[in-house]
Structures are given as C-alpha cells and as structure tokens.
C-alpha cells in the first residue's frame, strides 16, 4: 500500500513527510512494512480492527440521545510515531509542568506566596470556579494534588510542540491508548517486528502503585477502589477497563457508606473499609452533604472522612483551579517562580478577556481567534473565529462582555497533520497528543499517549464527542534512528 503517492501536505506541518515531501527517518521502517500490503489487504485488516473494537465493547457514550448510544471510537490504523529524542524532551517538559502545578496547588491552599509576590493576581484564583477555599490549610496525603494529569499537546506550523491545556481533574482516554496498541498488535503484528516501539503496558501497574502510595498513613495493605459515576457516563468503559487491569473493585456511590468517618464498601460479607479512592467523579458530586446537595452519585460523609485522613482521593480535591483555562495562562510563570526554569514546552499564545488590554484585542479580533470558556471540556463552549458565522461571533461577543472572567482567546494553531485513511486513500488530518502523567513516589509517563485525530476534513476539533478518532502512538527506543 502506497501512502505517499498523491498525498499532499497542503503546506501544513506533516508528522510523516518533511517539507521536501520525503518521509522523516523515523517513519521509514513503517512505510517499508506498509508497502508489503495491498489495498485490499489493508482494507480487510482495518475491518478486523473495527470488529475487534466492537466485540471488546470498546465504546464511548454519545450524549443527547434518550438512552445514550454507545459508539466505537473511530480508530485510524496509521500509527503516529515519535522518535526517542523528541519524546525525551517532551517528557522533561511534562515533568517540569506537573511539578510546578503541584507546587502551585500546595501554595494556593497554604501560604499563597505566588499571590503575595504578585505573580498571579489574587482575583483570578478566588474567582476560579473550582477553587475550594474550604480546603485552605488542608494537607493532602504526600502533598500531591494532581496524581493523574492528561496534558494536551499540539504542534504548530513549524513543528513546535505547545501545551494546549492540562487536564488535572479526572482526565480520560488512557484506556483507548492501551486498547489501540492491543488492536494494532493483533491486526498488524508484522508492523512491530524490528520497529523498536516502546511498550506501554506498564500503565495500569504504575497507576496502582501510585494509588497505593497515597494510602493513609499506617495502612500497609490498602484497599483501593475506582469510583465511577455509573454506566451512563461516557467513560464507563474506561473505568471498568482500568479497574480490571489493576484488579480493584469498581464502585458506584451507593456501594459506599461512611460510618464514624470511615469509608466502607457494601460486600456480601458486610462492610469492608476502603482506603484509597480513584474517583472519576467531579468534586461537586462527591458528597451531597458538602458540595452539590442534589448529587445522587456521591457518598454522604466522604469529605469528612477525607479531611480526617481516613481515606485518600486521587486526584485531590480542588485541583480544578489548576485546569481553569485562565489559570493555564499563568503556568509558564509558575514554572519560573517555583522552579526557576524556563518552560520547556511553551503555552499557546493566550489572551485573558478580563485583562483590559486583551479584552479590547479579543473583541476586535474575534473572527481571527479561538475563544474558550474557562471550565468547559470535550470541545464544548468554544468559538473558532475563522470558521464561525457572524451570528456565532456576535453571540460570543455578548457572552464575553457579560462575563469576561470566564473567557480566554488563543491564536489559532495550524495544528500539525498526519496521514489518515479516509475512504480508500490517505489524507492529512489534524492531530493532537495527550500523554498521561502519574505523580506518585516518582513521576511516571508511559512512552506514548492518546493521539486524537480530527476526522472531518479541515476540522481542528479532535474530541470524540465532536467526531474525532484516535491512533496508536509509538515512541521509538533510543537505538533507532534519531
């Protein structure tokens, strides 16, 4: 199968081809392997991969339908390949970033030096929707706030990696990273021989080790559970997948009960104490006696048990302040302030609507900017100026004027593209990359991440809820080219 013939980069940075339309060296081995397949064979294997996903029930739920329809996340069989040296640099940048974010979270919930030193204006912190002032002065186990971080990276027209956002609450998608690799190995085993792809299977055990590490003091053999919102959550497949891979129980709020500030789960043999909860429920829903009173997903009394140190949560409560998109703007400053280093991976050029100078600029250039609301995810609450209608622009203008604190604007990035199989041929599609960072006794990043691909032609939105698909992501061993 010939991937390059008739393929055009259209002037975008292409992951596979360089500016002279030559394959980058780290793709050479893959292209050679692919060339041994005929178009029919390739199409057949693609279908096998789809059947694999369907039979394994690797689905996400599309909201909006009455029952929540399960869909297979579209999977593209052309892997994204990252050479070793490039990955090493990314890894350093991600470690730097999560270190600074955790120092920041500890600081804003304790001494607030960064505010007092004037590096971040106080009002931005205090107006952050997920800032939990109730937890000021509270010590989280091992001083770790963000245990699991999914940082979204993109590359611009020059191939420069940029951080788009840090997902520091309950980032999802890691199960697709792991399943994509399984599917690829099963359907295209020959691609792997001699390719020197670094394995990613260690993720679940690294996750479990991290969760055990944060257990309350004095608990030697902690019981760890995964708390899910339930079957109708879009990421339910992932919750079950991770619990199974770690050999821990997946629980719903109703399976847990708090007595004398100790969390128990209801078992066939009565109540059993729980020590660490990997919660995939937002802060707001964790405990109806503390946060949202109407929450039916949470566990009454959980927060008090947490406060008393009887149970640990990952991620900690209050991390949402660090992934407020307005606070994201300040991460490079945090890196300089806490670590005295220059950021290794820069942010996207960002404007804050609440800053007077930026405010005017944003309102005057809406049709050239990407506008995002501070606390949405999944591709919702966004305006892509260059592609928006005048009505949409007028609507965002009204929203920004009404609540400038809630909006940021960014220069649109000409996201890098990757050859992707589209109806019988290969076409360039925009991609991003979400590596998963685990912060426990040490910081672990399995080599790779979830590459998401915007499947509709020209689209810049990679979220699965917006029609995005995924690819397997290969990081090569250092013995390979580059």
């Amino acid at each position: 199968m010939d991937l390059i013939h008739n393929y055009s980069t259209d002037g975008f940075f292409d992951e596979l081809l360089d500016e002279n339309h030559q394959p980058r060296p780290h793709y050479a081995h893959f292209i050679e392997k692919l060339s041994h397949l005929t178009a029919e064979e390739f199409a057949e294997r693609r279908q096998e991969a789809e059947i694999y996903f369907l039979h394994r029930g690797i689905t996400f739920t599309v909201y909006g339908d009455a029952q929540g329809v399960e869909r297979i996340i579209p999977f593209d069989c052309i892997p994204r390949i990252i050479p070793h040296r490039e990955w090493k640099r990314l890894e350093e940048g991600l470690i730097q970033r999560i270190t600074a974010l955790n120092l920041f979270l500890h600081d804003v919930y304790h001494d607030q030096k960064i505010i007092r030193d004037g590096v971040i204006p106080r009002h931005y912190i205090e107006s952050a929707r997920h800032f939990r002032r109730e937890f000021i002065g509270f010590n989280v186990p091992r001083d770790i706030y963000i245990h699991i971080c999914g940082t979204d990276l993109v590359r611009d027209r020059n191939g420069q990696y940029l951080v788009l956002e840090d997902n520091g609450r309950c980032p999802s998608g890691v199960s697709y990273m792991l399943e994509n690799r399984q599917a690829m190995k099963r359907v295209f085993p020959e691609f792997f021989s001699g390719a020197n792809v670094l394995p990613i299977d260690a993720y679940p055990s690294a996750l479990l080790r991290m969760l055990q590490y944060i257990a309350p003091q004095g608990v030697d053999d902690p019981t760890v559970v995964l708390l899910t919102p339930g079957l109708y959550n879009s990421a339910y497949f992932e919750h079950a997948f991770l619990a199974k891979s770690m050999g821990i129980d997946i629980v719903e709020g109703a399976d847990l009960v708090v007595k004398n500030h100790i969390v128990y789960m209801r078992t066939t043999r009565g109540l059993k104490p729980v020590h660490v909860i990997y919660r995939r429920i937002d802060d707001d829903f964790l405990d109806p006696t503390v946060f949202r009173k109407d929450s039916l997903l949470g566990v009454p009394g959980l927060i008090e048990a947490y406060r008393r140190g009887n149970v640990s949560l990952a991620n900690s409560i209050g991390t949402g302040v660090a992934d407020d998109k307005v606070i994201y703007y300040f991460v490079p400053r945090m890196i300089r302030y806490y670590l005295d280093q220059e950021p290794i991976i820069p942010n996207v050029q960002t404007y804050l609507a609440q800053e007077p100078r930026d405010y005017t600029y944003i309102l005057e250039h809406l049709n050239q900017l990407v506008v995002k609301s501070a606390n949405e995810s999944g591709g919702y609450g966004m305006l892509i100026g260059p592609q928006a209608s005048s009505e949409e622009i007028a609507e965002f203008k009204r929203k920004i004027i009404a609540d400038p604190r809630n909006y940021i604007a960014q220069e649109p990035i000409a996201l890098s593209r990757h050859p992707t199989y589209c109806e019988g041929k290969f076409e360039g599609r925009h991609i991003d990359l979400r590596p998963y960072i685990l912060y426990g006794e040490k910081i672990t990043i399995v080599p790779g991440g979830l590459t998401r691909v915007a499947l509709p032609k020209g689209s810049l939105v990679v979220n699965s809820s917006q029609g995005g698909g995924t690819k397997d992501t290969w990081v090569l061993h250092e013995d390979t080219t580059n």
Partner: protein
Amino acid sequence: MLSRVANCIYWMARYIERADNIARLVDVNLQLLLDYFQSDKTKLDQYWEPILKSLSIEEAFHAKYQLANTDCATDFLTFDLSNPSSIKSCIRTARENARLVRDQISTEIWEEINRLYHFVNAASAEEIWESSPSEFYRQIRQSSQIFQGLSSSTVLHDEAWEFNQIGKYLERADMTTRILDVKYHILLPRVEDVGGALDTFQWLVILRSTSAMEAYMKTYNSDVTPLQAAEFLILNNIFPRAVRFCIRLVDSALRRLAHLREGEFSHPVEKISGKLLAELDYSAIEDVFQYGLHEYLDHLQVEFNHIGEAMQQTYIYSPAQEMGSEVIWHQQQIQQQ
C-alpha cells in the same frame, strides 16, 4: 465481593439461562408445527397459548395480540422488547448486568455476551430468523453454552462463581417446571385420550424442549409415559436440567458461600433450599401426581422464589434508594474530562 456485583452476576447468569431455555422452547415447537396441525386453522391460531400461560406472560401478550398464532407468538417470545422475557430482552438485560461488572468477569465472557448482544440486535437478526429460525435459535443456545463453558473455565471459582451458579440453576429449575407445565395447559380433546398418541406426542415435545429426549431413553429404555417423563424432569438426580439436580447445585453453592459443614445452617436461605432438596430427594412421582402435577409445579415455583428472595436478603439486600433515574442519568453524564 460487592453486593451489587453479586447481584449483577446472579442476574446475568439467570437471563442468559432464560434466553437459552426460551430458544429451546420456541425452536422445538416450531419444528413440531411442521409435522402437525397443518390443516387445522383453529388449533394453529391457539397453538402458543399454553406456552405463554406457562411462562406467565399471556396477559402481556393479549394486551397486544388477540390470537396466539405462530407469527405473533414467536415474535413476542423472540424479538419483542416490550416482553421482558423475550430472548432479545433477556440478552439485553444480561449484557447490561455484564457491562456493570465487566471488570469482574473474564474478557472472554464479556466478549461472548457482547457478541450475542450484537447478534440479536443487528438489523440482520430478523432476516436470519426468517431464513432459518432453527439456525437462529441454535446460535442463541450455542452462545449460552459458550458462556457457561467460559464461566466454568476462565474465572476463579470464588464467591462470584457461586452467585453465577445459583442464578443459572435457579433459573433452569424454574424453566423446567414451566416447560412441564405447558402440558397442563394443553387440553386433551377427551379423557380417554390420556396415554394416546396425541398425549404421548405432547410429552415428547416437552422432553425435546429440555434436551432430555436422549437422556430419557437412556434412563428408561422405553416409550414416553407421563409418569416417567415427569419423574425424569422433576426427580432425576443426574440429569442436569432436572429440578432435583438443579436444586442440589443451588443448595451446595449456598452452603459453600456460607462455609457450612453438613447439618449446619447460618441463614434462613440454606434452610429453605435444604428443605426443598430433601423433599425432592424423598418424593416419589406418584406423590406428585396425587398432589396434582400442575399444583406441584406451582408449589415448586413458589419455593424457587423463596430461595431467590432469601438469598437476596442474606447477601445483596441494601436499603432501597429512592432516586429519580432521570436525574442520575443526567448527573452521570455531566462529569468532566
């Protein structure tokens, strides 16, 4: 293990077993229809009535259809989602339960249930049925057998396994009594027809519906008689679809769950199942017929319910939550990232 998980595994096993039994029942009757009643339209229009009655779904059926003829009845029993005991409904419920505990069952089990679910839900399912109902039901039965094989060979034989066993054998015992009860609801034209060709034929259908024909022949080495057929399906100790066999397995699973030795009891549920087992162990088929076959089958079904309820009370019961399911559904969805 979590009570909720035990509950899901129990119901998953029950519903897979139910789908299997209904597939047997419908398939056998469809095949027999090819031989009989060909000319008698009135009989054809009522043929399925006793089967619906024995499954206690005749009211739901008649809310929708007047006549229990083959078209409506097979559709109601196979594809109709408004019938919670249709094959399609059973498989949906089983898969929903499996999905809730997919971290607790083996990947192979999950994939088989998922495959079965996609098979009956595919647009092509009714076409496959149209071209060969028998092939369609064979696939359902086969998948259920694969599920059972995987259940016994790919998971720990721990607590979860016991709940799987209890669900499977309780459902199977119940379905065997229901299939037997079909005979009660089929009225013979005249009293003197008892023991006649039609009567024998009907007993044959019952044995075939429970895959018991060959085992019956091996056991009795003689013609099918009402007494022997009923004895075989209720009191046989080594035929895996006989009530006594099933209850013995339910009872031993319950005893293992409670870590009991001979003669010991720790919950009411073991007394209920033990008592029923003793009754079956020491009963003769003549006693059953004296009591009245239909009445006895009713009594057995009531006892199965008692076992199920007492098991729930012991291992699964948690305070009922008064929740708006719509609200939960919405809240589950709005979690971020």
